[in-house]
């Protein structure tokens, strides 16, 4: 199991977690717009759960949810320690495809270099 933010123990096993890195792109698991957010947040507040390639799920903010669907590919990036999602255009998706095919694109490199690299990976005690 891969969790974010870094945790000392796996939530489902009493096993120590190890650090890992993931690319900053993934899929929308679900999203909502909160119209009466708690104190300290502006309405409307767009919140999404994003699953990165590799399985880690992030809670993120976004500028808008128009046109967003469950399964949409998005990039996530941290600004002042808060993760934001943004929709990827056709060109960005093509670059991700080419990176998978072995040819890294500019946008993906810049995502990979963003501060979101600090994701931690858990290992089952029995597993290793």
């Amino acid at each position, binding site marked *: 199991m891969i969790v974010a933010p870094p945790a000392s123990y796996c939530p489902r096993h009493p096993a120590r977690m190890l650090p890992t890195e993931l690319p900053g792109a993934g899929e929308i*698991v679900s999203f909502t717009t909160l119209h009466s*957010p708690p104190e*300290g947040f502006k309405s409307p507040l767009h919140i*999404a759960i994003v699953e990165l390639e590799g399985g880690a*799920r*992030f809670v993120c*903010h976004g500028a808008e949810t128009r046109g967003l669907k469950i399964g949409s590919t998005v990039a996530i990036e941290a600004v002042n320690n*808060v993760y934001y999602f943004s929709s990827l255009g056709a060109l960005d998706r093509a670059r991700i495809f080419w990176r998978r095919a072995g040819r890294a694109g500019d946008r993906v490199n810049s995502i990979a270099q963003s501060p979101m690299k600090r994701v931690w990976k858990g290992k089952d005690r029995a597993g290793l």
Partner: protein
Amino acid sequence: MRDVWISGAGMTAIGRRTEPLQSLMAEAALSALLMAERERPDAIVVAAMNPEEFVGDGNFASNVATHMGFAEVPTVRIETATSSGAAALYAGFAEVAAGLHRTVLVVGGEKMTHLATPRVSELIGRSIDPYERLYGATMPALAGLITRALMARNAVGLREIAQVAVKNHANAAKNPYAHYRQPITIEDVMTSRMVADPLRLLHCCPISDGGAAVVLTSDRIGVRIAGIGQGTDTLAVRHRQNLTSFRATQVAARVAFAMAGFGPERVDFAELHDAFTPFELIALEDIGLIPVGKASRATLDGETALDGRLPINPSGGLKARGHPLAATGLAQVVECVWQLLGRAEGRQLEGHTALAHSIGGLATNNWVTVLERL
């Protein structure tokens, strides 16, 4: 293990109450003791989710016991967020089943309406994973995420989740203890204020005050607790692979039915945790009361209405009876006991077997209780 019976069940009217929390809990406890024909229990279990913040009182087991004149009766307090009432029932069940006590009073309550709504939301929201809270996640926000995932996957639509609210308000209209007693229409639900897209105000339960209590005994009288089960899951919703069903409910149901020695097909009616109306549809399938993928259809077809094949939330549910947090898990059991013993005037159902389902936090600590009249 001894058989455990519920010999008394009582509750306050749910809603906006002016009395102190201790008085609400005493009112519920005394009415349960009256029905059980007991003056004094051998032990007490108290359920309160957060009296420290809501009403500013701590050491709450002793506080409530002393208020009721039971300062010398051994008392403990149990807490599992919004399912605290059901958890307290479990603790009382264990005390009687183990033979530690012959008669145990279980009483739960919460008092919130004197505080401003944002403050109440913030206090309830503290049961959410701290990291998710940093992003402004509240209970309605997480329920909104779950509802959207449900609608994307399971052919659950806006009409179905509105119909749950319409049905439960119609039931509450017949329940003198309910918070909201006026019927509503699908139109009312679909045009109410948007809270956490796609959830609107009338998909969500109100903020309520109230108390509920039961008297447990090893004497063969009243309604038997045939099975009781707990299920748990990660505090963080993002750590769950599946958003559209709750592991905590599935496990709780499995454990409760294993103890009962029969399955969901025996259940005649149920009280389910509908803090947000889609949760009733999820619970129907997680517990196995309705086959997977069929809860929406069953609801639209009226199968879960008061006059349907499997009445769900005859009290009005959290949605319309109201949700005074730690009282809720017990209020569900009170309704089941009253129904089973023919004391639910105006909304009386036929049946021998009832089920109560309570969710703690965002389905991190859930309970299923199966009750049987012999």
